[in-house]
Each structure stands twice: as C-alpha cells, then as structure tokens.
C-alpha cells in the first residue's frame, strides 16, 4: 500500500470563521466538548451508585439463587455479611473482545479519512465499510451483554448499579448506533456517480471525529466499569 502523508488541502467548500478554522469543524469540536460533560455526568453517577449498593431483599435472593450463588445484583463477586455468595455480572473477557473491536474500528476509520483526504476513493470506501462492520459487531456484543444481564436478573430497575450501568452504556451504544448510521450514509453517498463531492475529505473527517470520540468514551467506560474492581 503506497503511503502519502501530507496535511490535507482545505476543503473546496470550506467556511472559515474569524478564528481561521472551518466553522463546521469548530462546531463539531464544540459539540464533542459538550459531550464530555454529558458522559462525565453519567460516569459520575455510576461511580457514586457503584460504591453504595445495598444488599438485596430476601425475595430477590430466593429468586436468583443459582448453584449456591446469587446472580444479577453486584458488578463483581462478593460475600454478604450473612455469608451469602454473590456472583458478579460483569464478563470481562467478552467486553475485552468488544473493546478490541472498537479500537480496531478507530484504526479503520483513520484509514478511511486518509483515503478521503488523499484522493483514494477505493481505500476510503473499503475502510468506511470496515469501520461500519466493526461498529455493528460492537453493538452485537452490547446486545449480547444486555441480554445476559437480563437473564441473570439485572435490569434498569433492579438496583442503583443496574440503573446507572444501563443508562451509561446504553447512551454510549446509542452514540455508536448514530455513528454507524452516519458511516452508512457516507458509504451510500460515496457509491453515487459524483461520490461525496469535492468536500469528501471534510465529510469523512467530521464523521471520523465523532467516531473516535465514541471510542475514547469507551476507553474510559471500559476502565472505570470493567477493569477497576468494585
């Protein structure tokens, strides 16, 4: 694969603000900065609730006792004051695989941006498709995880952990879904005879910014929820 690394030329339809930055790019970065606050609040809520999960009622224990362990209540394995064993719901190996998939989708996305900004439409289309596919695989992992948690008894209304976990990861999943739709629209647009037009590099770069942001949010979520023990 030939390599050509240079700063992309300004987009044909560039709309510069008084800062000298394309106003559309500036808007995207302002949006991403505001998204930091959105996810920051959700992560804070999760951390607060995670440290203060009360033990379940006897009815819940009776209903969810499997093989001597209570499932669907705590994120990690734990022993209650009365000696009851609780099995943690988080499945780190599965989530590690989905994290790997999302990281690789970021690599695919940056290669699509490279193709778009260096006049290589075939490369752009191939990597856009790969990014979209990896995004769908990530969503598949999330659906699987939510289904497993539901089967173990954990849902939005089970306890504070369930509520904050599903809201945080659910909103992240919704962002990934929006990203997949944007990638799909780019891919469909690039199939037209005129392609994505003279601004193609800019369009792909903007969607790429969103996609990478979704990836860095997951980097934080993965560490805080899954890797740091309860």
């Amino acid at each position, binding site marked *: 694969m030939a*390599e050509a690394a240079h700063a992309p030329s300004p987009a044909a339809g560039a709309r510069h603000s008084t800062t000298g930055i394309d106003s559309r790019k500036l808007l995207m970065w302002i949006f991403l900065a505001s998204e930091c606050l959105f996810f920051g609040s959700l992560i804070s809520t999760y951390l607060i609730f995670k440290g203060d999960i009360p033990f379940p009622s006897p009815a819940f224990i009776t209903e969810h006792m499997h093989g001597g362990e209570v499932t669907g209540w705590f994120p990690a394995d734990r022993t209650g004051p009365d000696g009851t064993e609780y099995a943690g719901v988080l499945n780190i190996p599965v989530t590690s695989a989905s994290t790997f998939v999302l990281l690789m989708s970021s690599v695919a996305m940056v290669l699509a941006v490279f193709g778009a900004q260096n006049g290589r439409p075939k490369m752009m289309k191939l990597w856009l498709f790969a990014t979209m596919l990896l995004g769908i695989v990530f969503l598949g992992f999330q659906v699987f995880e939510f289904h497993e948690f539901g089967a173990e008894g954990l849902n939005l209304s089970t306890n504070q952990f369930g509520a904050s976990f599903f809201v945080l990861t659910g909103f992240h999943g919704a962002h990934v879904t929006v990203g997949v739709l944007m990638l799909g629209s780019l891919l469909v647009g690039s199939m037209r005879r005129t392609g994505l037009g003279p601004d193609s590099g800019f369009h792909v770069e903007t969607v790429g910014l969103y996609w990478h942001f979704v990836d860095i949010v997951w980097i934080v979520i993965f560490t805080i929820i899954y890797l740091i023990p309860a």
Partner: protein
Amino acid sequence: MSVEGGHAAGAHQRSHPTVRQYLLIGLLLMLITVVELIASYSDIGSLLIPILIVLSAVKFAVVVAYFMHLRFEDPLLTRLFVFGFVLAGAILIALIALFWTDSAISNR
C-alpha cells in the same frame, strides 16, 4: 481576520501520520489494552487503580492526538476540547465530594 491571517494556517500544514504510522499506533493501543487486562487480573494491590488510570489516559491521549488529528490542528481546538474535558472532571469531583459528604453526615 482573514483566512490567511488566522493562526490556523500554520498549524494546519503540519504533516499527518502515514498509513504505516497509523497501523503502529493501532498496535500500540492494542498492546496497552492487553497490559490493562493482565494488570486487572494480577494481584498488585493498591497500585492497580493508578496503573489502569495512567494506561487509560495514554490511550485516550493517543487517539485524540493522532486519530482525531488534534496534534496537527489549530491550538484553539485543543483548548476547546480540554476545557470541556476539565469541566467534566470538575463535575465528577464535585458530585463525588457532594455525595461522599452526604453519606458521611448520614452515617454519624
């Protein structure tokens, strides 16, 4: 201020990474994730959380700098994003401090 006169012009012309460099960065991210996983399963006591936070911060910074091209963009965009990030961190600290205090009072 004209486009040419904007301070974006100089910063925007820096060379972006090559395909090979992007792949190497991807490999680095993968390796850091593997190290995180190994650390989370090993018994390293109180060092675990700082190690995981540092590794996660490195991944975050690498993606923002190289994949999102912030290293090659106008410094104004970096300031804008860092402002949002710092504000999010302040919210996190404020909320945790608030609820920790409430919990401490109710436990008296």
